[in-house]
């Protein structure tokens, strides 16, 4: 009641004539200060401890064999993910099949590859020749020497790809199940076959659910490829190991490898953001602005010159 009379009373001021006193947040200042101190100490030790060998790091960051290692890492990531995605879609569709034998087979695959360490799988593939010296695949006339066929690289691709397929099939399955059943029904009623429905109607819509975890998996795969150094595939880590085995500059070279992993995963994270945006099409009326668009908008509204000149 009093509030109403004050607002309409003669002493009422214009809304913007009050002085606003902002709330103080002493806790925030304290915690920020503590973090800055710790970070400063850490950085100080990192840059003054000579054992880090920053000059050596700078030297090897652009080394040719490290560069070749990066290419192998990138190639291995791409091929393994491609295999993983293809297998993932196949096994996800199999797991949703009406045929119980097909369903069980897909489940067994997923269970086996998810249930054993990928490092062990890699060693198995690498040593396949000990298990099957000759590969015939049951086809008469086919006679392959396992020792020639299973190079470290093929073992790596098989190991990483098959393992990834198991994880991807769970992701794809969740994506397929996220699509409203009415979609399949509408397609069926139009006479579209099951395979066509999957390819044209269900999977494109499942992408929205599939893409974000697949981005994470790709970043994970990039780091997992370091495991194949144990079967001497010359990827990034193995290339660094070769160098420090000779020069004993272990720490600087591990830093070189880490910096490259970090750079590539950062780039992949940005790529993932734009990919997710693209697949949100048709599901959102307006897409949220990208960080880049936000920055430009911020500059446009805060740049005194731009406002004065009226150029937008």
């Amino acid at each position, binding site marked *: 009641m009093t509030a109403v009379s004050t607002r309409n009373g003669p002493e009422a001021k214009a809304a913007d004539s009050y002085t606003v006193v902002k709330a103080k947040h002493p806790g925030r200042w304290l915690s920020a200060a503590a973090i800055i101190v710790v970070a400063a100490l850490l950085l100080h030790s990192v840059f003054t401890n000579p054992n880090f060998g920053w000059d050596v790091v700078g030297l090897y960051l652009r080394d040719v064999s490290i560069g070749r290692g990066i290419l192998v890492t990138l190639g291995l990531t791409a091929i393994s993910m491609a295999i993983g995605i293809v297998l993932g879609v196949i096994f996800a569709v199999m797991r949703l099949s009406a045929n119980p034998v097909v369903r069980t087979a897909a489940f067994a695959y997923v269970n086996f590859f998810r249930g054993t360490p990928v490092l062990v799988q890699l060693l198995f593939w690498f040593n396949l020749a000990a298990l099957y010296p000759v590969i015939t695949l049951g086809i008469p006339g086919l006679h392959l020497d396992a020792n020639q066929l299973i190079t470290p690289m093929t073992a790596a691709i098989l190991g990483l790809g098959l393992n990834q397929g198991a994880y991807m099939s769970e992701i794809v399955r969740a994506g397929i199940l996220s699509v409203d059943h*009415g979609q399949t*029904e509408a397609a069926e009623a*139009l006479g*579209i*076959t099951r395979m066509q429905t999957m390819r044209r109607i269900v999977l494109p819509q499942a992408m929205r659910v599939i893409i974000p975890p697949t981005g994470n998996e790709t970043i994970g795969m990039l780091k997992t490829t370091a495991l194949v150094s144990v079967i001497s595939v010359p990827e990034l880590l193995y290339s660094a190991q070769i160098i420090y085995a000779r020069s004993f500059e272990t720490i600087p070279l591990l830093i070189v490898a880490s910096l490259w992993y970090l750079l590539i995963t950062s780039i992949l994270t940005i790529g993932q953001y734009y990919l997710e945006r693209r697949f949100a099409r048709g599901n959102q009326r307006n897409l949220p602005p990208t960080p880049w668009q936000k920055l430009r908008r911020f500059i446009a509204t805060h740049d005194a010159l731009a406002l004065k000149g009226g150029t937008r």
Partner: protein
Amino acid sequence: MTAPVLAEPMVNADSICKNYGSNEVLKGIDLKVYPGEVVCLIGPSGSGKSTFLRCINHLETVDGGRMWVNGKIVGYDLKGSKLYEQSHNDVCRSRTEVGMVFQQFNLFPHMTVLENLIEAPRLVRKEKKATAVARAKSLLEKVGLSDKADAYPRQLSGGQQQRVAIARALCMEPRLMLFDEPTSALDPELVGEVLKVMKDLANSGMTMVVVTHEMNFARDVADRVVFMADGYVVEQGPARDVITNPQNDRTKAFLASVLSETAAS
């Protein structure tokens, strides 16, 4: 639009039975729908109307009885005295003769309106793009949405989406159209535009089976009204007779409840 009784029926349901586990949903439905006829299916929720509709285009397999559509047994090939179950692809092919419109529209949200319309003709009938687009555009004009060809479903109102869904079904040039409560998910002010499209379609001679609670539509547009309850056809007859002068007590009770609901809203 009186039924030409001598013609071969478009739909001939012969004591259709359907159960889900121990739940008997359809307990012997007999129904004939003749070419050009509009039949409205009414009845309380859970009486099996949707299930029966879905048996007509084989979205559900029947557990007893025979369903004939356009002179052919649904889901089977008759050779001599034996019925051979059809392959998935054959079932899909025969579905193209029957269009279906759902309560929830079920447009493909990742495609524009035009893409929604040409998808099935391109995939199923392997039509050239130009042919499919031309037919899609003329159908969009018929449902009054020529300017929405490039919109995504989310950008349309419910009424507009349902009109697109009708156009999408018509793109396959079906001989029979099934509607499952096409206006039940719509805001009241949007119901009229969809009913008008359906009325135009009826007037153009399309054979239609419509599950609906719109009694005015049933009375004015349908040739026949079929009242279903508990998996049986309880009463059927000329639309005006059944709605204004029902004979069966259950029909009377159902109509009274539906009409009082309409009056209240």
